[in-house]
Every structure is written in C-alpha cells, then in structure tokens.
C-alpha cells in the first residue's frame, strides 16, 4: 500500500506582515493535481500578497508552502525546517509558473526569445530544440505569426498570451496567475481567459487571483474568498452566485461585482 501522491500545492497557515500590519494572516490552501482554484476578494484583501507568497516572491513570515510535498525555501528534517541557501530557491521555482498583471515580458526580447529564454538559459536545453517547442507554444496561444515581434509592438492581450507561453515553456507543475486580465482593455479579456480555460481543460493545476466571477464559475473547480488578509469562505466554484454562497461578506462582494 503506497501513500497517495501529495497535493501539487499546499499552503499551511501562511502569514505575511508589512511592518506590523498583517497583509495575509494564517491562510491555508490545498490544490490537487488538475484542479483550478480562483481567489476572489475586494482590493486590499491580501489575495495578491498571498499568491506571491506561493512562490516566495514575498517570503512568508509564518507558515510554509509545499510543492509536491517539498517545502519551498526550507529543508525538513523531522520537526526542523532549515532555511536553504538562497540559490536553492530558483531551482524550486522552476516548477511554479507565474503570470503577472502587468505581463512583465522582457522588453528587449522578441516574443519567441521571451519564451525560449528560460529553457535555454536555466534548463540548458539545446537552442534548436527549444525553438521548435517555443514556436509550438506560441501557436497554442494563437500567436505563431507574432514570434518576431517585440512586446511594445503587441497589444495587451497578445503580451499576456506570450507571458502564458513563457511560463508554460518551463513545463510547470503549477501555474499562478495574479489578476491576469486586470490590466487589459475589455475587448482583450476574452482572448486571455480563453487560453487559460483551455489550459484548465487540459488538466493544468492553476491558482488564479481574478475579478472575473463568470470565468471563476465556469472554468475553476473551487473558489476562495478573502478579505482582510484572511479566508472568509471556500467552496465549489459553481456556487459563485449571490444565492449560492453561504457567507454574508461573500454575498455582498458578489452583489457588487456581478
């Protein structure tokens, strides 16, 4: 009898302080393989800080993040979590892809170069091989004909799709999306959400901070509602309606955004 595989992501009582102020207080989250979770909440509720804790862009002051059962930034021996050397972190982060609100494409590289950078320089895979797979990734997000364009020559929606392809190039176990459509013009939101929905359909494990309740309801399996740095309610994403949720604070938030 073998133990069941650990969840892809497990956050245990994660807290983050800025000064004496708690931005995130004791948030736990478990995400099994192939599950998409959406984090909702009003601005300032700590959801962005929390998702940034999940790959240690913000180092949690308390609590731990486990990816495939391995603690991020620490080595566990019995009851002791010993912080690992700073240069161990990049190796662990390879398994966690991230998509940012502001895309953060490398401005001095073309779309194709953006996607190729990490597999070539971090994984040291041969350039010719990477070129082929990067091209296929751009095709998958519908941008094969924009491979030679620099970020400033692309629309916001196109930039975000390149950013998704760039994250996928590392073949991550988990994809974190921090408000992936918040910086986009309304007509571009759809193309980005469509790409994300197709990833979920293909079984990608995903955590997304979003304001798109419709997307959360249709694409994600679970939702987490945060306020004041804490989880208010957690549940099935299909229940994301004013009558479906059970907490009053979730209901009043949904009433405002729906």
């Amino acid at each position, binding site marked *: 009898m073998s133990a069941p595989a650990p969840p892809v992501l497990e956050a245990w009582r994660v807290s983050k302080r800025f000064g004496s102020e708690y931005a995130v207080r004791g948030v736990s989250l478990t995400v099994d393989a192939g599950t998409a979770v959406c984090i909702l909440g009003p601005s300032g509720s700590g959801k962005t800080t929390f998702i940034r804790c999940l*790959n240690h*862009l913000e180092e949690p002051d308390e609590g731990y993040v486990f990816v495939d059962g391995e603690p991020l930034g620490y080595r566990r021996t019995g009851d002791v979590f010993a912080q690992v050397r*700073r*240069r161990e972190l*990049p*190796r662990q*982060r*390879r398994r*966690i*892809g*991230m998509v*940012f609100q*502001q895309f*953060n*494409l*490398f*401005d*001095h590289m*073309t779309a194709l170069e953006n996607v190729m*950078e*990490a597999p070539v*320089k*971090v994984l040291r895979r041969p350039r010719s091989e990477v070129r082929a797979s990067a091209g296929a990734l751009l095709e998958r997000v519908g941008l094969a*004909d*924009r491979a*030679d*364009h*620099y970020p*400033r*020559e692309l*629309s916001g*929606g*196109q930039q975000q799709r390149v*950013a998704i392809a*760039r*994250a996928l190039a*590392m073949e991550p176990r988990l994809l*974190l999306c921090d408000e992936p459509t918040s910086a986009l013009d309304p*007509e*571009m939101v759809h*193309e980005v959400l469509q790409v994300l929905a197709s990833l979920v359909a293909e079984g990608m494990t995903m955590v997304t901070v979003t304001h798109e309740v419709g997307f959360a309801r249709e694409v994600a399996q679970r939702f987490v509602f945060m306020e004041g740095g804490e989880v208010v309610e957690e549940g099935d994403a299909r229940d994301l309606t004013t009558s479906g949720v059970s907490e009053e604070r979730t209901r009043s938030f949904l009433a405002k955004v729906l």
Partner: protein
Amino acid sequence: MTTTTTDRSRAEKRPAGAGPSGGAAAGLERTERRLRRNTGVKLVGVLAALLLAFVVQGIARNSALEWRVVGSYLFSGPILDGVLRTLLITVTSIAIAVVLGVLLANMRLSRNRVLQAVNAVYVWFFRSIPLLVLLIIAYNFSLLYAHLSLGLPFGPSFVTFTTAHVVTALTAAIITFGLQQAAYTSEVVRAAIMSVSRGQVEAAETLGVTYWGAMRRIVLPQAARIALPPVANETINLCKSTSLVAFISVPDLLYSVQEVYAANFKVLPLLVVATIWYMAIVSVMSAAQWWLERSMRRTRRTTRIALAPEVVE
C-alpha cells in the same frame, strides 16, 4: 450655481440639429486660414550664418596659425604615437570604469549594509579628490608603498614587486582614470538599473533564473540602453581629461605636441594639430554612440513589418 443654470437654459434654446452651422460656426466654409510667417526666426538664422562665416574666415586667414605647419605635423610620427596613447588610456580607463562601475552599483543596490558602506566610501573618496591631485599621488605611489606583494592579508606573501617598476607613469594614469571614473559611472549604472522595472526581475525569478543570471540577461541589457548616453558623455569627457597626463610626462597627444613646440616654437600651429585630433576622436566617439543607440533600439526591421501587417485586436 446661477451661471450654470443660465448657460444650460441658453444651450437648450439653440435649435436642435443646427449642427456646425449654428453659433460661432456659422459661415465657416467661406473663411481662409492665415498662418504666421516666421520672419523673425529667418532673420536670426541669416545673422547667425553670417557671424559663423565671419569667425571661420577669421581663423582660416589668421597668419599666426600657419596652416602649412599644421599640415606638416598632423600626421607625423610622434604626434600619431601620442594620439594612439591618448586612445589607449581612454579606452582602457573607461573599460575599467564600466566593469568596476557595474560591480559598485550592485554593491550599492545589495541588501548587505557593509557592501553598501564600501560603495559609499569609494564614491565619496574618488569624487572628492581632484583628478590631477590623484594622478600625481598615483605617480608617486612608490613613495607610499615601496614594495607591492601578492599574498594573504596578515599572512605570507608569494611574490613581491618594487612599486616603481610596476606602476609606470602610464599604468598610474590608467589606474587613476579608471578608478575615479568608476565612481561616477557606478552612479550612472545604478540609476539605469533602478529604472528597469522590478517586474522584469520578478518574471525572471519565477522562471528559475538566479540573481546574477537576471542581472546579466535581463537587467543589464535594458539598463545599457539607458546608461549609454551618459556613459558616452563621460567617455568623451575622459578622453579630453587624459591630457592631464602631460603633468606626469606620459607622452600622450598633448605632451607630444608640447615636445615639438618646445623645440621649434610653433606653439599655436601645434596646438591646432592637437585640437584637430581631439575633435576627430570625439567625432568618431559621437558617431559610435549614435550607431550603438540605433542598434539597441528594439523594433523589427521595416521589411518584416511589411511582411506581417499590424493587426491589433
């Protein structure tokens, strides 16, 4: 409040659908637009051109400049050697300054307080001392330390040199210019690094890139574009400052010219020779800066744009 109400009521009285022909727009089809003729600007331009022509002919026809002497020395052996030495000092010093400047900038930006302090002291020290004073100190370095040795601090030394043999006037000059320039360049590099958005580094970090990997592949290439104009400025400035080495008898361009006019007393023509060479070097540097800036501009070639017409969704 009263005014607003009056305005609104007046606007409502306007006949609906009158469009552009009503009010101030009535009869505009018949009008003609007269732009100002900038006669003043043209007049100033003509005057400036005349003044320039007057100055140029005044220089060209001044017999004291002895243009024939200028021509005969412009490409003579000692002068060309001097030009090469000036270039050597400039290029080596700026190379040292840029490498050291990048390191110093990273020290300043590091979270380590000691490294920050080392950078602060370095920048303070080298910006405080006049270049000429520093140059003479470096030239007399052997008075400060007669021997230089490679070894462990407070421990055994492996090789020992006599300072005067290692630190020649030329190396003293290169080290001085390199170290002082690094203090200035580090501030330029620091500003350029800070101007690259934090998101660029974060994106690299989430892809598993290390700090120095992100610095080398992501931050510095973008910072270089921003740092290029000020660094080019400093290179040009440094090139002319190298003429100070004449004080410690390094045979650069100015020193070579002085040697010649000390012998033949053709002071002005030879200073013109030096001037022409400095101007030529700076012109080449400016051209190089223009070319570098153009090649760092990140857009596709125009032919590609024609092949893939822009479709913005």
